């Protein structure tokens, strides 16, 4: 993937970086500029979103050969399609003739046909039809396939990566078995509800919010706090050195129903999970893919920046396959219960959304400054450090390193 821009110098000044890198309880937060500047944003795009695995949905979004979904990762359009062999493939959504975007939204095709001059591509991205190119010299259709994009299926999630050299996603998250993600049967579950939000906040505010419990009594006083009080949240910063974190609202088991009881099939293997990880395990794989498995349902999050101060948030709710099928068939009781679950999701999601937008408004102030972390924000500190390390360090080739920064002076 071509570089959008390569940061010419440190995005965060060395002082601010040093302050962030101190132990959590001694550290300062990321400077507010990191949440609003174009430069920080471009550095994150280039070094994080063009390099890391992004969740673009679930395998059930494309059940049949030819079913496709399209996605935009900042500037890069990606098509995910189930090919004729039944496998998912990802291609860049760019015609190889003269660059037209190939498809829009989701749908089902037998072949992709460019709306501009009609080049036709097979589901595996191979150029199958280029009308009137017989006379064009040295033109070999085999050289004009759609650009392939890395794709992996993981527990039913569809992960893509714009970086051809990225390590496989499976390897990056192999340690999730330590807290038992593999015991919930997430791969057997099916999406019943989806939400998409266009939020006026920097994407990092949302990840920090997702991974810290400090806000729960205030932001979720009527929703989550009674169910999962802050004091029962435990962070596990040292569970793995892989690029993810876990905070668990401990309890014998949680679900999304009004009364707290599971209504759908519960995976038997949950019994094998060590008690400290039971309850509401809130997992975030950086940069922006979150999974929260519960007794009989799962929530998943995927965020993409739309700009320095704008973020697209996608959330899905999974139910066990039987329940999802009953839901799809319109079974009254299933629909009622699933509706109840979904209402409860919306209850706390809108609270998180609103507070992140509100925080962003504050961060816009010229006088906004770095803050501090408390003991409930250890993972937010960890995440901020990961971002700073990954995106804000000067370019490895050193061009212009140390020539200044947008923040930290």
């Amino acid at each position, binding site marked *: 993937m071509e570089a959008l821009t390569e940061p010419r110098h440190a995005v965060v000044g060395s002082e601010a970086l040093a302050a962030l890198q101190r132990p959590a309880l001694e550290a300062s937060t990321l400077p507010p500029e990191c949440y609003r500047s174009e430069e920080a944003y471009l550095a994150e795009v280039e070094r994080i979103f063009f390099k890391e695995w992004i969740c673009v949905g679930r395998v059930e979004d494309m059940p049949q050969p030819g079913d496709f979904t399209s996605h935009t990762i900042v500037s890069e359009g990606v098509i995910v399609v189930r090919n*004729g062999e039944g496998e998912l493939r990802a291609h860049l959504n760019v015609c190889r003739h003269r660059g037209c975007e190939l498809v829009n939204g989701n749908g089902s095709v037998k072949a992709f*046909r460019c709306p501009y001059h009609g080049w036709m591509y097979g589901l595996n991205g191979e150029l199958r039809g280029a009308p009137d190119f017989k006379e064009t010299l040295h033109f070999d259709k085999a050289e004009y396939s759609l650009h392939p994009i890395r794709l992996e299926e993981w527990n039913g999630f569809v992960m893509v990566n714009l970086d051809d050299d990225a390590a496989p996603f499976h390897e990056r998250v192999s340690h999730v078995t330590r807290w038992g993600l593999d015991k919930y049967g997430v791969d057997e579950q099916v999406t019943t509800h989806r939400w998409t939000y266009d939020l006026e906040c920097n994407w990092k505010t949302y990840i920090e919010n997702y991974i810290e419990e400090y806000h729960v009594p205030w932001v979720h006083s009527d929703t989550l706090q009674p169910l999962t009080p802050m004091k029962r949240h435990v962070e596990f910063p040292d569970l793995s050195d892989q690029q993810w974190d876990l905070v668990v609202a401990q309890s014998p088991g949680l679900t999304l129903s009004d009364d707290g009881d599971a209504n759908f099939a519960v995976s038997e293997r949950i019994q094998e999970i060590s008690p400290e990880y039971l309850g509401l395990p809130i997992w975030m794989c950086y940069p922006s893919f979150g999974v929260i498995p519960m007794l009989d349902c799962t929530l998943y999050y995927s965020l993409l920046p739309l700009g320095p101060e704008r973020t697209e948030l996608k959330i899905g709710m999974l139910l066990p396959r039987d329940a999802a099928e009953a839901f799809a068939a319109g079974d009254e009781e299933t629909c009622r219960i699933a509706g109840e679950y979904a209402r409860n999701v919306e209850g706390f999601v809108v609270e998180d959304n609103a507070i992140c937008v509100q925080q962003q408004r504050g961060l816009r102030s010229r006088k906004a400054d770095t803050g501090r972390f408390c003991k409930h924000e250890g993972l937010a500190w960890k995440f901020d450090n990961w971002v700073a390390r990954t995106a804000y360090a000067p370019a490895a080739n050193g061009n212009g390193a140390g020539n200044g920064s947008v923040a930290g002076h």
Partner: protein
Amino acid sequence: MSDDLRVADLHGCVAPAAELLYEHSGPQLRGYWPHVEERLLLTSPTPGVGDWDSSYVRFATRRELERSRRDDARTPTPAPFPPASGADADVEPALLHDNPAGRLRALDRAGVAVQLLSPGASLDAALELGVNPAVGVLAAYNRWVRSYCEADPQRLKAVLQVHGGEPQWSAREIRDAFADPAVAAVTIHLPVKVAPDERNFWALWDALEETGLGVLHRPGASARVWRPHQLASYLARTGVLARWGVPIAFAGWPDGWLEPWAEQLAAPAPAAREALAAYAQAGRLLAVTERLDERDEALARLDALAPRAVAWGSGFPFGPLARADALRRAREHDGLQRRALAENPWTYLPAAAPAAPLKTPAAAAGLQ
């Protein structure tokens, strides 16, 4: 293989995917394409017959489309091809739509000099589109197959596909393509309601006679109405065969048609029927068969009746390109097999000079 044996295979098969027909389409068909697209089916590759290595799209019949909708298919539909013909070393990948070099290598190995190429069911299904889009698809096919044959136009021979519902267009298509050395014959798709002796059809016969191209009649959209014996006796009875010296070959017909065909040629019959046997003797009516067994009764009968009435068509890559023993015997004996493989009147099509029309009283009466 002795040098003087020029083995001609009158029935090689190709199967361009709809993507390739689209690529070779003219602007008119491209305009129709969004409508045409609804008639396409995602199709599985067919291992063992030189097919695509991943799924592709093809034209499907209404019935196939309905079935696939009913099945709510999670996998592509199978190709409308016969099952793979066992492990045939001759079949290189992508032979059906590409890789003419691989086909030529197969011809070399089998000692086959020329092969006429015909499309199968996936093109015929396009005829269910209205006449205009169907003509667009046939024109696209003709462009495609001629580019396929460019690899060696002396050996890979295109059978043009034209539409009986549009004789004027068909005549133009034949005349336009004739200069191409690869073009060797013509298949006329006959809609049910079209009679091939009607006045507006004459332009098509004229074009065929002028160019010396023969008609290769294979089962297709018109198979139900125009089986070989029906078409032959109709054309004889109506005087078409008498008026235009166009040779006709019947290729790709499922087993079992040779017996009634031999029967028909042999039976004592009214004048038109007699003429039919005469046409066969003159090499004007040619039965193309995959089987070349000397003990085959129907073949022996045909051979006795009209020594130039049988030719060989392999059905490759669905059938074996050439059985070694058949070729060996053909070399050694001057019998039916040798004639069918190497000395049939189509070996050097298009004919340098058009076949002479056979005038019989009955035929002359037919077109009045």
